[in-house]
């Protein structure tokens, strides 16, 4: 297997050499790596901004920055984390790299469109930077709520256009994935033989495709309001500011599922591999994935319980919010049940996946506090909300992203990494995470509003501890990234199937060749059948 040239040594076109072989590539794996480099770059920027925020809040009054700068920093932290890291993170990197391999294909259906998506992503990122220097950094928060976003003189227009361009990138990726799964799936692979990560990407792609245009149009309406003053959201001219919130959350709540569904797909891949046991409830997980995608698209107005919308809408959207908890819980129970009586092998990816289950569950349960209209009114726009969504977004999607990095790193680069350092990093990140976000939940319940530059003296201890947690967490993240990069140079070569996985990506060499498969892929009747793996391991022990 190892004498086959990998995609890293073979450009997609023989005419392309050096940097051009990367910047003009149409190979889905190289595009995945391009995404990885750019997404990790933005992740590091956003983490730095977040740490600056928390350092500012560690003590009362001004410590690092003024209030105007603080507004700009939390806006950029949110915009970058949401649009440039979490939304594209797992689908663009791991989806691009793995989806075609998992379904037995040699590329995505539209390879050039795939490259265009990456260029749009880069262009969107550059526009976000330009917005810093065009009338001052944006200060609206990532939600761009009217009327402030229409009235502020900061560079919101460019930030909004950046989000619009990034939305286009996301939609094109979604179209590509849906078409690829329908058209390029190997003939012998039925829908119920598809790996769960592919299923999660499929559900995500539909949400991307149906929800993103709403945000795109809404963002253009903000630009139109700012430039032409058409009055769509201005009550003085017959407009409705609450309509903006409806339109914004119509995308931005499903966006939560664009972030979390692929994360759930990652965990669904990792749990059976390291439990050496078929996933519990394959069909239930597939159904719950689709159910989350559908139900999750109908709950947006739970972000608006205090905005002045009708009580009927509050009742309906609160009820629907609770419905989403059911398929989410089905997944959690399925993962835990997969481990039951399994032959568990602890590895860094499994460690991150286990942390995901715990932290995501806390995020989900605190979400129910916010989904119930009665309690929501008390904690709305407090630090409780900040704590909750970081538990879901970072504790969920972020930890799954780290798990995916550790799980598929050997496949992508053909090198292992240092396990001890990976565990150290994972423990630091987890402890730091808990110390960072639990105080926010408590501060919120005590009444500390979100996005405030200063606070009452009684909130100082909580903010101080949160800051300490932030530093521990960032130390862990740095250690994790350094360890992975070091693995590229010093790590032991990875075999084709280092973990004993059963899906098709583990049947190709590490790293895979340009056209993915050396031999015709053989599809199992059930994608998580570990019989062969267990027999191989038993055989090697006897020898």
């Amino acid at each position, binding site marked *: 297997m190892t004498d086959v040239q990998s995609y890293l040594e073979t450009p997609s076109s023989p005419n392309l050499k050096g940097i051009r072989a990367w910047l003009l590539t149409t190979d889905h794996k190289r595009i995945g790596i391009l995404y990885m480099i750019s997404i990790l770059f933005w992740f590091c920027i956003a983490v730095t901004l977040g740490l600056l925020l928390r350092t500012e809040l560690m003590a009362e009054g001004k410590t690092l920055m003024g209030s105007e700068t603080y507004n700009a920093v939390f806006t950029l932290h949110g915009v970058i984390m949401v649009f440039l890291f979490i939304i594209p993170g797992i689908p663009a990197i791991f989806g691009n790299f793995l989806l075609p391999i998992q379904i037995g294909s040699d590329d995505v259906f539209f390879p050039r469109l795939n490259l265009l998506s990456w260029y749009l992503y880069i262009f969107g990122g550059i526009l976000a930077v330009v917005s810093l220097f065009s009338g001052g950094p944006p200060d609206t928060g990532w939600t761009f709520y009217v009327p402030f976003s229409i009235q502020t003189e900061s560079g919101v227009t460019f930030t909004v256009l950046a989000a619009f361009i990034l939305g286009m990138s996301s939609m094109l990726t979604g179209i590509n994935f849906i078409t690829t799964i329908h058209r390029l799936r190997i003939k012998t692979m039925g829908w119920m033989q598809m790996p769960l990560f592919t299923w999660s990407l499929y559900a995500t792609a539909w949400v991307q495709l149906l929800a993103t245009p709403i945000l795109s149009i809404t963002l253009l309406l903000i630009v139109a309001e700012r430039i032409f003053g058409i009055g769509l959201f201005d009550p003085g001219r017959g407009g409705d500011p609450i309509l903006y919130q409806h339109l914004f959350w119509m995308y931005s709540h499903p966006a939560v599922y664009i972030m979390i569904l692929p994360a759930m797909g990652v965990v669904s891949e990792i749990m059976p591999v390291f439990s050496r046991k078929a996933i519990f409830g394959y069909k239930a997980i597939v159904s719950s994935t689709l159910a989350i995608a559908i139900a999750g698209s*109908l709950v947006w*107005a739970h972000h608006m319980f205090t905005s002045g919308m009708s*009580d009927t*809408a509050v009742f*309906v*959207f609160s009820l629907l919010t609770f419905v989403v908890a059911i398929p989410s819980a089905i997944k959690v129970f399925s993962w835990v049940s997969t481990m039951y009586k399994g032959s568990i092998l602890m590895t860094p990816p499994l460690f991150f996946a286990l942390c995901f289950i715990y932290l995501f569950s806390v995020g989900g349960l605190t979400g129910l506090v916010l989904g119930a209209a009665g309690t929501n009114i008390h904690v709305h726009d407090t630090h409780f909300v900040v704590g909750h969504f970081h538990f879901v977004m970072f504790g969920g999607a972020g930890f799954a992203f780290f798990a995916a990095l550790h799980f598929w790193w050997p496949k992508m680069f053909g090198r292992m990494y240092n396990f001890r350092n990976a565990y150290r990093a994972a423990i630091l990140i987890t402890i730091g995470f808990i110390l960072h976000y639990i105080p926010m939940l408590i501060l919120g319940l005590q009444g500390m509003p979100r996005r405030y530059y200063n606070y009452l003296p009684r909130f100082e201890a909580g903010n101080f501890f949160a800051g300490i947690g932030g530093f521990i967490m960032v130390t862990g993240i740095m250690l994790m990234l350094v360890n992975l990069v070091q693995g590229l140079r010093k790590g032991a070569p990875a075999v084709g199937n280092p973990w004993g996985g059963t899906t098709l990506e583990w049947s190709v060499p590490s790293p895979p060749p340009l056209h993915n498969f050396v031999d015709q892929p053989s599809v199992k009747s059930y994608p998580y059948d570990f019989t062969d793996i267990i027999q191989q391991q038993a055989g090697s022990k006897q020898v």
Partner: protein
Amino acid sequence: MESSSHEHIISYAKLFGVLCSLLSFTAITIGVSRMDLGALNIWVAILIAACKASFILLFFMHLHYETRLLKITFVGTIGCLAILIGFVFWDISFR
């Protein structure tokens, strides 16, 4: 590949007819906006906009001549849009 590759050439007369329909609908939109129909105003506006969009999709964008799969995809998307817009009325109709 299921998508049909042959071209559909629509006559100028038909295209002109569609254009006239669209202009007529625009005139109706303006006319209706000056009438007070209460809660019905918004439904009438949405209905007219939907008719105009349908004409454009069916004839200018050739959906009328496409395969069943594309038509189903389109109707599905319109269904999703209708649900999303409909859900906004849980708020607007009960304020």
